[in-house]
């Protein structure tokens, strides 16, 4: 993998044009998670905590192997375990590594009202810059995968960075490096799609007729993709959305409401202008000024 520039192509709540002189010549990157190779060992969780200096709480067992029980500001990735009895009556233990999907069309970034709190790099990675985060939580609403979490400590939003710091210097994300079975691989998105095609073919030869790649178009495709045995039923894998879309709220917020608001601002300005032109500026009389002075000087 080549070194990656961290040129920003999109920045939340900003209208300044993105730099365009340099492209991501190596193409967009992608992480491919092959669920059919994953043994749920959680080495990725440890690698994530170690590389990113995170330590979640030593919690409790809540009756499942998923631990900690949910994503948090300290757990940016998590194995989710689902026991599924297929129509043949055989058990399948579906283990999905959850975390940010790095959407090509990121709902979080669209929803974010704070300039520069969420950015997207030319290589496709969607990154949170917490120093700009105001903790409003709109990114959570904007995320179709329910990934960002607000920290109780600093009220800012956190999630997987796809190890943008590692990727920038030509390294793979920490979870990829730690994965013992090669279930997580990393490279250019086209290479990952090709690799996935091989894996899907292998799974089909093992009786998984509906095996396929999860790269949902509703969010413009993702830079974290899954190979699934049951690509027709992604919801089996701990409610992975079948057809994720950016939430209606964000669509309204950044879709219809934004031009409407702009229209409102423009209408107010126009009304003022017309008033000025038609009637002229508002003026005060001497009596008005005197009355105001007296009012102010009244002992209270």
């Amino acid at each position: 993998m080549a070194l990656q520039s961290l040129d920003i192509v999109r920045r939340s709540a900003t209208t300044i044009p993105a730099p365009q002189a340099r492209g991501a010549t190596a193409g967009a990157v992608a992480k491919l998670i092959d669920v059919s190779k994953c043994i749920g060992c959680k080495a990725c969780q440890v690698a994530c905590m170690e590389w990113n200096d995170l330590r979640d709480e030593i919690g409790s067992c809540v009756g499942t192997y998923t631990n900690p029980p949910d994503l948090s500001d300290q757990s940016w990735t998590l194995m989710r375990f689902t026991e599924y009895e297929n129509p043949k009556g055989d058990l399948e233990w579906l283990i999905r590594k959850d975390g940010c999907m790095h959407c090509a069309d990121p709902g979080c970034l669209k929803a974010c009202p704070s300039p520069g709190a969420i950015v997207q790099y030319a290589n496709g990675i969607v990154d949170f810059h917490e120093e700009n985060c105001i903790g409003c939580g709109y990114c959570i609403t904007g995320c179709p995968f329910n990934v960002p979490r607000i920290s109780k400590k600093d009220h800012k939003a956190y999630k997987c960075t796809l190890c943008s710091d590692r990727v920038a210097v030509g390294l793979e994300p920490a979870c990829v490096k730690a994965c013992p079975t090669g279930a997580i691989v990393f490279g250019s998105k086209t290479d990952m799609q090709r690799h996935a095609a091989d894996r899907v073919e292998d799974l089909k030869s093992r009786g998984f007729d509906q095996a396929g790649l999860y790269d949902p178009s509703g969010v413009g495709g993702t830079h974290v993709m899954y190979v699934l045995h049951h690509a027709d039923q992604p919801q089996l894998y701990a409610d992975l959305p079948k057809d994720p879309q950016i939430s209606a709220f964000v669509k309204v917020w950044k879709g219809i409401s934004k031009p409407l608001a702009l229209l409102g601002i423009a209408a107010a300005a126009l009304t003022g202008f017309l008033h000025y032109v038609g009637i002229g500026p508002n003026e005060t009389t001497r009596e008005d000024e005197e009355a105001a002075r007296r009012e102010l000087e009244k002992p209270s």
Partner: protein
Amino acid sequence: MTNHWVDIRNADLVLIMGGNAAEAHPCGFKWVTEAKAHNKARLIVVDPRFTRSAAIADYYAPIRTGTDIVFLGAVINYLLTNDKIQHEYVRNYTDLSFIVKEGFAFEQGLFSGYDAQARKYDKSSWDYELGDDGYVRTDPTFAHPRCVYNLLKQHYSRYTPEMVERICGTVQEKFLHIAEQIASTATTDRAMTIMYALGWTQHSVGSQMIRCAAMVQLLLGNIGIAGGGMNALRGHSNIQGFTDLGLLSNLLPGYLTLPGEKEQDYAKYIAARAPRPLRPNQLSYWQNYSKFHVSLMKAWWGDAATAQNDWGYEWLPKLDKAYDLLLAIELMNQGKMNGYICQGFNPLAAAPNKAKAIAGFSQLKYLIVMDPLATETSEFWRNHGEHNDVDPTKIQTEVFRLPTSLFAEEDGAFVNSGRWLQWHWKGAEPPGEARSDLEIMAGLFTRIRKLYQSEGGAYPDPIVKLAWPYANPDSPTADELAKEYSGRALKDLPDPKDPTRIIRKAGEQLAGFAELRDDGSTVSGCWIFCGAWGPTGNLMARRDNSDPTGIGNTLNWAWAWPANRRVLYNRASCDAGGKPFNPARKLVGWNGAAWGGADVPDYKADEDPANGMGPFIMLPEGVARLFARDAMNEGPFPEHYEPFETPLAANPLNPDQPLALNNPIARVFQGDREAFGKSDRFPHVATTYRLTEHFHYWTKHVELNAILQPEQFVEIGEALAKEIGVAAGERVRVTSNRGYITAVAMVTKRIKALRVDGKTVHTVGIPIHWGFTGTAKTGFLANTLTPVVGDGNSQTPEFKSFLVRVEKA
């Protein structure tokens, strides 16, 4: 392992049974995913639980814990009945055509020679019939009623698919599907590997389970080939080195054995271990035993070991019995053992029946714990509430805690499951007062020696005469020890074929065990490691992973025992004429003058195959044994016996012979027998195991691991949960006849109730990782529940099958 981790990628079929490689060996398990991804291999998992390995298997079948011999025996029956055996292999490389002595018998679950009083066999009838020439009589037509083939067929004819369903609870359809898959590897172009671990060893018939699987592999011609083998997945990173260096109480380094108390005569001791060939022109390599033994004695006693004193034979302990862990704790309880040193060992957590261990430790005068962590053993006397409810005022044992360094804080070699000795280098200084184990043991030794030298004693010779040639006697280095176990010449060594030529100068490191002598001119502390630090230096430190043949043997990466050989018995990968059975996976071959190839040949390097030397050169037969002769304590063929705590009243295979309900020769101490529970009060079958998130009782001291699995839990199936009215996340109490634990209930579809011999059997899964010290939430030691009985050959405790009662807490 007969093979090695990387070689698993050469398999067409992977059977994981008696282990859970994905869970307990996730890094090695990558080679299974490699085999699947690049070799289109299929993975089969047979386990009481649907495990992490099962999660990515192509096929899974449940089995009741402790019944694997029924399953494997039925596979043998299937292979023989359907003629799915590798004919050329079994005819030439196994004892299938050998004729067994008259007098050998098997009836109602017992072999000939059983002494019910002593719970022992007279094994004299378990042998081959010898001809007048001193060689075993054979019948290559397999017609003789007492040839191994017919005895084998007869023995396993009782192991039917119906019996599998009845005893194992595995439905016939699933068994037959798996048997068919296994049988598909009888052809020369397909290989199956078997991966197992404590799921087989920790049973009262564990050794026989493993042997039974090895017999399946022999019938299929899967031993000695790439992608095949019997592959034991070792737990601790250096547990292979532990056994290699002879740390079991009855062993010497390199699988040499300590003499028994009746073996007072040195010549007889050697003769009993250096058998003459049982067939013409066989190598019977143990005939070199004395060379290995004398070289070891020279390492131990140096110049004091001489031909005149039989190389110090008198100083070797002569065993009256094997001093395993279970016996040690029994002796403590009897007041016959009053001091104990634990080196990297947490026996309070690792020995069965914690209450018995506490009682034993409480009777010791002193207990020394050498460990990097504050283990439960070192705190056995401290009250930790419900988790360790003892009264410290009643315990007088003096406990010394000696903090040791960790592996990353010292140089040395690990031996992995694939027998590779891999050198590692110190990465950091040990913290605080911690010292290396070497330094602590050396410090103890030099002080004890001084006491013997100044004050004398009952028998000072073995101590005061011990060779201690290290530059700093109080702190030998890893390099010094490695050179010693590898070995060197003490005198100039002449070439046996041309005495005018010197092959090694005095003081030079040896290239391999073929250079060892029994005249005192060589020294080697562990003959199988000979050559690891050879004339050219430390081969364990090599890191060249080039693989010119593509078979994955990487002969210049580290060093494998024996002789840097990567696949044991690899001669058996070739036909009788020396041509590889499968040219696509060639390991070695005969080129008309010599053996060579992608591995170091496990054979005499210049032996013309036309002379008929067998590939199993360590055995006097030269071929592998389907009939074990006297090598196993229960009998020459594995027979199913129920766990000592069984849900069944009788052994369905031998219902009318109560002596054959459990392993008839397993050693059971009186008090332990009384502590066994019965299924009327303890109706649920329990099994203990490990989780990926933790390593034994260590990583509960580590924050990151504790985050991943913070709190003790037990796994129960949905049916049992419903029966006792417990939901996932609620607490349950698990009781055996020896104690109880409480834990969070994990209610799962992955454990199913099984239908066994007409009754429903629920399995309870008990991960072992919690205790009363560490960073994770404290909990109960799982061995509070487990029974004290060991395997009939190795005395490994039966941690995988016992009875409990589960209730809502």
